[in-house]
């Protein structure tokens, strides 16, 4: 129950920061994608269906507070969770550097998904250069924020006992 509450609170806090931070700190061209950092954390440490549902809901939260078509970030965050989960099952990812690498991997999955959506399905006429630049800045800021977010979550959320790597 406690992890659920903490993740709900962290999700709300992340979206509030993302929707107010850029306005307050006028020099930032985009907000760090904290929702992505939370999703990567779930993918690294919560190897259960609840983790997948958490990632889906975080994506939905981002869909609600962005102009995206409902479903775009649900799909993106669930994919990020799936990819990070699969990688973390096969590689040892318990040190800070590999955590940052996981956030970079998650950002790459997000960039590919969003760019593919804009290129293939969206009716909006947007410049892919602008999309890539914005997503790049968001990813860079997420990488900068990731260690602090991971450390805060490590202190408040008890990590579940991981099953053996051979389980899946």
């Amino acid at each position, binding site marked *: 129950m406690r992890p659920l509450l903490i993740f709900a609170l962290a999700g709300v806090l992340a979206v*509030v920061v993302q929707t107010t931070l850029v306005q307050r700190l006028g020099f930032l061209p985009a907000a760090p994608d904290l929702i992505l950092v939370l999703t990567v954390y779930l993918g690294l440490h919560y190897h259960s269906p609840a983790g997948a549902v958490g990632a889906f809901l975080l994506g939905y939260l981002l869909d*609600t507070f962005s*102009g995206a078509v*409902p479903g775009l970030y649900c799909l993106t965050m669930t994919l990020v969770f799936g990819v990070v989960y699969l990688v973390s099952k096969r590689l040892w990812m318990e040190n800070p550097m590999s955590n940052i690498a996981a956030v970079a991997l998650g950002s790459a999955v997000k960039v590919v998904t969003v760019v593919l959506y804009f290129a293939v399905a969206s009716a909006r006429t*947007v410049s892919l250069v602008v999309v890539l630049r914005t997503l790049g800045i968001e990813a860079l800021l997420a990488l900068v924020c990731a260690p602090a977010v991971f450390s805060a979550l490590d202190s408040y959320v008890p990590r579940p006992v991981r099953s053996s790597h051979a389980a899946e």
Partner: protein
Amino acid sequence: MLTLLRRYSVLFSTGTLLLLSLALLVTNTRGTRRIDPLGVVFLEVITPISHLLTTVSSAMGNTWRAYVDLVGVRQEREWLRRRVRELETQAQRASAVESQNVRLQALLDLREGLPGQSVAARLTGVDASGLFRTATINKGESDGVAKGMAVVAPLGVVGKVVSTSPNAGRVLLLEDPSSGVDALVQRSRARGIVEGSLNGGCQLKYVKHREDLRVGDLVVTSGLDGIFPKGVPVGTIVRLAREEGGLFQTAELEPAVDFNKLEEVLVVEAPENEVPPEASRAEPSGNGRHGG
């Protein structure tokens, strides 16, 4: 079978959620109705927190600025410093109140000049993603705000309400690429559609090639889209693009409103006498092009 499901439970649930997301995305991209079952709940829960944080951070910013202003008088005696701090804080408060009064007066003047009902609202947050241009306002259905209503500021068009909850609303800003406003060039009465672009500006498109456009021309709403009242400034032409042999010409606009400095807005009901029947029936779609 059960053992297999249990063993691959994470992959199975992730796959199911991916399919669900894909279904949601495809339905909202292709359909005319927005399917967003949890959006209202999230909007209703988070908007008050966002509003509170904006207020608190604004107060903290004022306190910080007051502190910075006082660094120069550190050498003075303690009682004088306290007095100066008090006076500074008071002056800033008065200045903030004065500035707010000016903004609200402008909003009130605008409200009086507009036909139909209008609701004053405050912006509580911007888009959570850098790829879209939307904002959250602190007024919703209980205040009379409804989907499709126009949002304006004293300087001009802001956008259009695209979703609401009982106490909050989301506004698609003019500079979002999926926005569209029926507009006129004030001087020559040339008509076109203003669309946003992610670079921060917007463009006047679909203006007939023979129409007279000039840099510096003011573009205003035509009132023919059934959403925006007639004559509200949209922006000023800063560059012209004429294609040789093309049917239409395009102009880049500098929006009348500075979206980064926007605080208070008016949500305006569509003027009844200007609503064409097709426009009044149109529902904003999840991804389709619509006004605002």
